[in-house]
């Protein structure tokens, strides 16, 4: 397949760790220039600087911005900066991989007296779902989303599975997938596509913040028919592959990037793996 990423700018929202970071590296490897937005304290800033150097060592241009991508102020400052970087040329790929939300149960339990507040629920939806809409609006207005742009948003099995403390994020992912479908139809006349990528359970800094992650990491690794968890590079591979799609026909979907983890029934496949 022709490389449609070479010498094209891509935007990664949530670039400093996990899937965003892996995707930034994979895009640069394909010869794409990478603009990334991250939001980190001092240690993360240092790591982002190193990532920027690594990206540039591929011979591409790279700029990472330490800005709250979910805030109106951050976005309205970044969009003109991005237009300046690309010289007004549309982005080839946009990855929405913002993971920041409240991991608090809806109702108090004996262990946690805490219950989710309105502010926490609204913030989680705003960051992890609605920001995709606002970014798409502003990038389109700036000519940065146009014919050939491929937009991807990271979702999770949380849209169909319930985990303790994950209620707000589950709701955000459900809203995100709905936004993807709506945007796919509204972007069709512009020749741009948008899809949600549903990664399997992946060990990233964001996952490690989820209470009780140890159990479902173990269960997921055992239940995945491939006998392992998803790694950030699996997601990066899918983004690179789909970014090279010549048309915008593949759009409006939620695409599993999980080694068939979601559809595999219980632990039946891990036993087969073990007795092979």
């Amino acid at each position, binding site marked *: 397949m022709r490389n449609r990423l070479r010498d094209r700018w891509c935007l990664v929202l949530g670039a400093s760790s996990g899937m965003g970071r892996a995707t930034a590296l994979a895009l640069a490897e394909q010869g794409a220039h990478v603009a990334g937005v991250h939001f980190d304290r001092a240690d993360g*800033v240092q790591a982002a600087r190193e990532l920027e150097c690594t990206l540039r060592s591929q011979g591409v241009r790279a700029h990472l*911005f330490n800005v709250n991508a979910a805030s109106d*102020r951050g976005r309205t400052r*970044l969009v003109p900066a991005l237009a300046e970087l690309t010289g007004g040329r549309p982005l080839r790929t946009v990855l929405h991989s913002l993971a920041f939300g409240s991991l608090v149960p809806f109702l108090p339990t004996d262990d946690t007296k805490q219950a989710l507040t309105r502010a*926490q629920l609204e913030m989680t939806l705003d960051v992890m779902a609605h920001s995709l809409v606002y970014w798409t609006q502003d990038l389109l207005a700036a000519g940065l989303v146009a014919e050939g742009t491929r937009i991807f948003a990271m979702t999770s099995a949380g849209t169909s599975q319930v985990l303790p403390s994950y209620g707000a994020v589950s709701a955000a992912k459900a809203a995100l997938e709905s936004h993807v479908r709506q945007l796919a139809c509204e972007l069709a006349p512009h020749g741009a596509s948008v899809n949600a990528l549903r990664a399997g359970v992946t060990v990233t800094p964001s996952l490690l913040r989820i209470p009780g992650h140890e159990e479902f990491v173990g269960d997921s690794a055992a239940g995945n028919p491939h006998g392992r968890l998803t790694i950030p590079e699996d997601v990066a591979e899918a983004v690179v592959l789909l970014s090279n799609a010549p048309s915008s026909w593949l759009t409006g979907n939620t695409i599993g990037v999980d080694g068939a983890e979601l559809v595999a029934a219980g632990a039946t496949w891990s036993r087969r793996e073990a007795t092979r």
Partner: protein
Amino acid sequence: MAEETRTAPDRASHAALDRERLRGLLAEILDVDVAQISDQAHFVDDLGVDSLMALEITVRLEAEFPVKLAEEELTQLATLDDTYALLDAKLRAAS
């Protein structure tokens, strides 16, 4: 132009700690009137600061002043007074 990782201000260019400048900075970050940032106004209870805004405060403070803030220190920051005291202590310790 948004602040970029590669052009984070170098340490020598940081301005000295000033209570009113800190008040103005917090008002800007929280998008409220300066008058609302009284010395004792509680970030969470009075100003509605959530975890994302708390991170925004931290990132901006680390960019404006030559300090690093640990996660557990953040939870101690409830008011302008607290923030001033912590920054003052850190800047003194560093000088």
